């Protein structure tokens, strides 16, 4: 049976098409979810894509958090549904308190767009199981408000519990504390990542195909579950 991965479109989402394409390239069925939907259409996992939901007004992700689809999504995530938030999706997950901390304006004040080297730090999440710990990947990164911040206590907890999923290598592009590029919740099913694996799934359009592992991981995990 083909696994069905929902991709939410908010007003202002940009990368929903690429996320859906990445799901299909990995062998899954992408299901379009609308911000106004009252349910998740029975999907097996959800991707919250990048972009500028609601124009990034107020704070990035702050208004999207209250979209109708987020009610059932938060409940399902708390119940164990795998959720991957990329860039703006990571911001939405933090605003929803599914993940700790927050993402603030880049310390450089500049919007940064580059091919970014990362180190995968945790392969125990359903989104990273196909990688190896310490594996280095290169995927695009593009954000203006990607600086990950949290209290020292929260940062220590994330490190201590192995919940730092990916870390920036060579250059910290946005001032993220402890070079953190991605984290998970305590259970591991909810992952937020500032760089964009969905833009690195095909040789024609990406710098690498290193990002595909996020999507093959979830599909393989769901088949085996």
């Amino acid at each position, binding site marked *: 049976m083909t696994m069905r991965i929902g991709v939410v479109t908010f007003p202002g989402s940009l990368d929903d098409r690429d996320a859906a394409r990445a799901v299909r390239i990995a062998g899954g069925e992408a299901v379009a979810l609308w911000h106004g939907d009252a349910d998740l259409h029975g999907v097996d996992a959800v991707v919250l894509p990048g972009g500028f939901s609601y124009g990034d007004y107020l704070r990035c992700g*702050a208004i999207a958090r209250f979209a109708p689809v987020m009610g059932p999504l938060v409940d399902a995530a708390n119940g164990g549904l795998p959720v991957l938030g990329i860039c703006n999706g990571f911001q939405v997950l933090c605003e929803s308190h599914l993940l700790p901390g927050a993402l*603030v*304006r880049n310390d*450089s*004040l500049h919007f940064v767009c580059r091919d970014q080297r990362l180190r995968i730090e945790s392969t125990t999440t359903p989104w990273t199981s196909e990688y190896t710990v310490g594996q280095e990947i290169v995927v695009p990164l593009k954000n203006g408000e990607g*600086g990950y911040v949290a209290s020292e206590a929260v940062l220590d907890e994330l490190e201590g519990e192995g919940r730092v999923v990916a870390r920036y290598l060579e250059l910290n592009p946005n001032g993220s504390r402890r070079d953190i590029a991605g984290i998970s919740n305590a259970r591991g099913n909810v992952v937020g990542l500032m760089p964009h694996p969905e833009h690195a799934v095909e040789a024609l359009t990406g710098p690498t195909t290193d990002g595909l592992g996020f999507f093959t991981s979830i599909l393989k995990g769901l088949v085996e579950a």
Partner: protein
Amino acid sequence: MARVVIDVMLKPEILDPQGKAVEGALGRLGLAGVTSVRQGKSFALEIDGEVDDARLAQIHDLAGSLLSNPVIEDYVIREVTA
């Protein structure tokens, strides 16, 4: 018509690169002695009817959830005008 003004500021421990940029500009424009600039937001709500305790409690709830992110920001209700 009531008016409620809510100020939102980044918590002191959160780096404010926008404030830093403004601080630099103020110095370049000749204002001496500025040691810190923090940039915040202000929300002015015009509200039909009276702001009673129940409504003020509702505004507090939303100021602490929608208007500010308590992980990085503090809010104060600066003004309530009946």
